[in-house]
């Protein structure tokens, strides 16, 4: 694996295109064997690796505008790989890969202290409050490439890491050392009917995300905290960009800071 050049996989999500349909959430749950319960009314107990937030510009009709914001794990780099969650995990059950830029979660090592959940400002980490149970017969649709998680541990979006492993295997079998852009795409990217999500290597000039992240309307969530996330958003609406971070009343909406 050392033959691969360093990557920083990330996403650019165009919020002007997102309709809030939730296809990305469904695609993610299906692809990653994300468990669900009979009663999902308590949303803060629901596991949604990809979650679509809805917020408005706060104005009343007819000036009301709505924004839907899909939020996967941000795979924060922090400073030198010290992302908020990785640095706090006491058992090294989550790690920042300098080869891919992906923050992993080692399910068999996590002992469920939930410190990482408290550390994540995006609420991208979820705890298995129950053991996963699928309705009879539905277990047959589970993906064999992703291990289901047990009760008492934390899980989160992996940027469909198993797809990268499969793509690498394919590339190796064909004598290549590099994975092509279209060979490794997350399920939410492929599931989005509006084409709002673009995925790829943020530091590879040949990849679409490399260009998109330089858009003048691109921004990241909570940049001021120093989390250094790898998910970018684009919106032509200033109030949406402003909602991406926290500002004092007199401050102007900030400019993005590229990797």
């Amino acid at each position: 694996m050392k033959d691969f050049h360093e990557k920083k996989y990330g996403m650019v999500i165009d919020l002007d295109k997102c309709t809030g349909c939730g296809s990305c959430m469904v695609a993610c749950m299906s692809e990653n064997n994300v468990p669900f319960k009979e009663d999902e009314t308590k949303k803060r107990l629901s596991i949604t690796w990809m979650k679509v937030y809805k917020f408005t510009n706060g104005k009343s009709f007819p000036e009301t505008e709505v924004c839907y914001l899909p939020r996967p794990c941000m795979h924060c780099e922090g400073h030198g790989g010290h992302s908020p969650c990785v640095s706090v995990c006491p058992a090294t059950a989550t790690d920042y890969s300098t080869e891919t830029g992906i923050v992993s979660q080692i399910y068999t090592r996590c002992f469920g202290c939930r410190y990482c959940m408290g550390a994540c400002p995006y609420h991208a980490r979820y705890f298995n409050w129950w053991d996963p149970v699928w309705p009879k017969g539905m277990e047959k649709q589970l993906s064999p490439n992703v291990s289901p998680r047990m009760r008492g541990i934390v899980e989160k979006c992996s940027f469909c890491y198993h797809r990268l492993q499969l793509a690498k295997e394919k590339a190796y079998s064909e004598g290549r050392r590099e994975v092509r852009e279209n060979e490794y795409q997350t399920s939410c990217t492929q599931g989005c009917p509006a084409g709002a999500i673009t995925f790829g290597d943020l530091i590879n000039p040949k990849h679409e995300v490399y260009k998109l992240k330089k858009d003048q309307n691109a921004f990241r969530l909570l940049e001021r905290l120093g989390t250094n996330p790898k998910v970018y958003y684009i919106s032509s609406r200033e109030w949406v960009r402003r909602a991406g971070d926290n500002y004092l009343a007199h401050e102007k909406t900030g400019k993005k800071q590229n990797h």
Partner: protein
Amino acid sequence: MDSALIPVGVKRCSFPKFMLLLGAAGAVLAWGVFAMLLIWIKGLNQTNMNDYYGFAIWIWADLAVIAIGGGAFFSGFLKYIVGKDELKNIINYAVLLGFICYSSALLILAIDIGQPLRGWFIFWHANVHSMLTEVAFCLTCYFIVLTIEYLPLVLENRKLDKIPFFHNLTHNMHETMAVFAATGAFLSFFHQGSLGGVAGVLFGRPFAFREGVLIWPWTFFLFTWSAAAFGPCFTILATKILEKVTGKTLVKFNVIDLLARISGWMMLTYMIAKIADTAYWAFVLAPSKGFDVGFFYTNNEFYGWWILILELVICGIVPALILVTKKGRASKTALTTAVVLAVIGVCLNRWVMVLQVMAVPVMSFDTWATYCPSWQEVATTILPVAYAVILIAISYRYLPIFPQEAELNPIAPEEALADEQESTEETADVAGAEPAAQT
């Protein structure tokens, strides 16, 4: 019935009355144990925690008992390292309280983790960057130290002390206790601090995050300082409660006065540091992340400015000022008020640094999180209190916890004579049964 086990020269309540107390506390303990088993068997779905409130009442209870248990390490530090010899009259009780607090903290941690059987991963796969790793190591080591400090006290039981091996072991352990006290102080400095660091390093949580020196945020030092300052207040409060329950004076006033005075000055200096930290956070650090400090105390149902005022002024500056004045310490009412406020204050600080941190939204389009513990969480949090009542009751009844008790509460001459005779007979029995061991 159990008179042979009761220390010489002191009087205890009747055995049935004692058993009644144990029974009442035991019932509460059983309720807590039942809730604990439910949680271990069915999982953390028995709680009202959620993905926004991953840290809740247990972590607060953990931090709170460790803070108030700080009286053990600081009293030990003052007696054995600084040389405040008067504190020998309260150190046993401080150690007992510390032992209870730390064993409770470890139990709560074992309940709190989602996979208790993997608890040892924290040692085996330790991440040296995590404050929680430091907490786990230092907490465990210090609990061992507290056990070593508590052990000679147990062996000083009237019956056990008759066994020459135990008697000599106790004597030798007392001789080397300064080493353990120093070790305890060293370990406590780190784990009290790292508990503060748990919240302070969360740079994704502007309400908790603090800058600091090297790898340690300011909360690291503030937690150690506050535990040393407020911990002795809990020792004094627990002593006052025991005196009330037993109807006796157990420690002379000069001992309480000394501990209260030191605690008062520690609190006053801590409050200056804490207010400086809060001011820097409110006017520089939080605004640099885009937060007006008012945001943290408004637009929600519970966390208002009142909590800041209660923690810093009413339960911080007020008790500190009472305890640093001679007049304040001399007044029974003022002293009791001060220690009660101080204990509430330090527990409130830990509440704020755990539960309010979780409640505050960080993303601008997110909402405040609310949380109310389930009965299982409440029962398991009360469990350590029942455990504490039982252990204190047993220890007080059978062990010489308070060296000044006999002097302060002389028993009737005929009772003293009977006690002495009984004691002499026991010595003779032991001497007859184990002549070789006596030589």
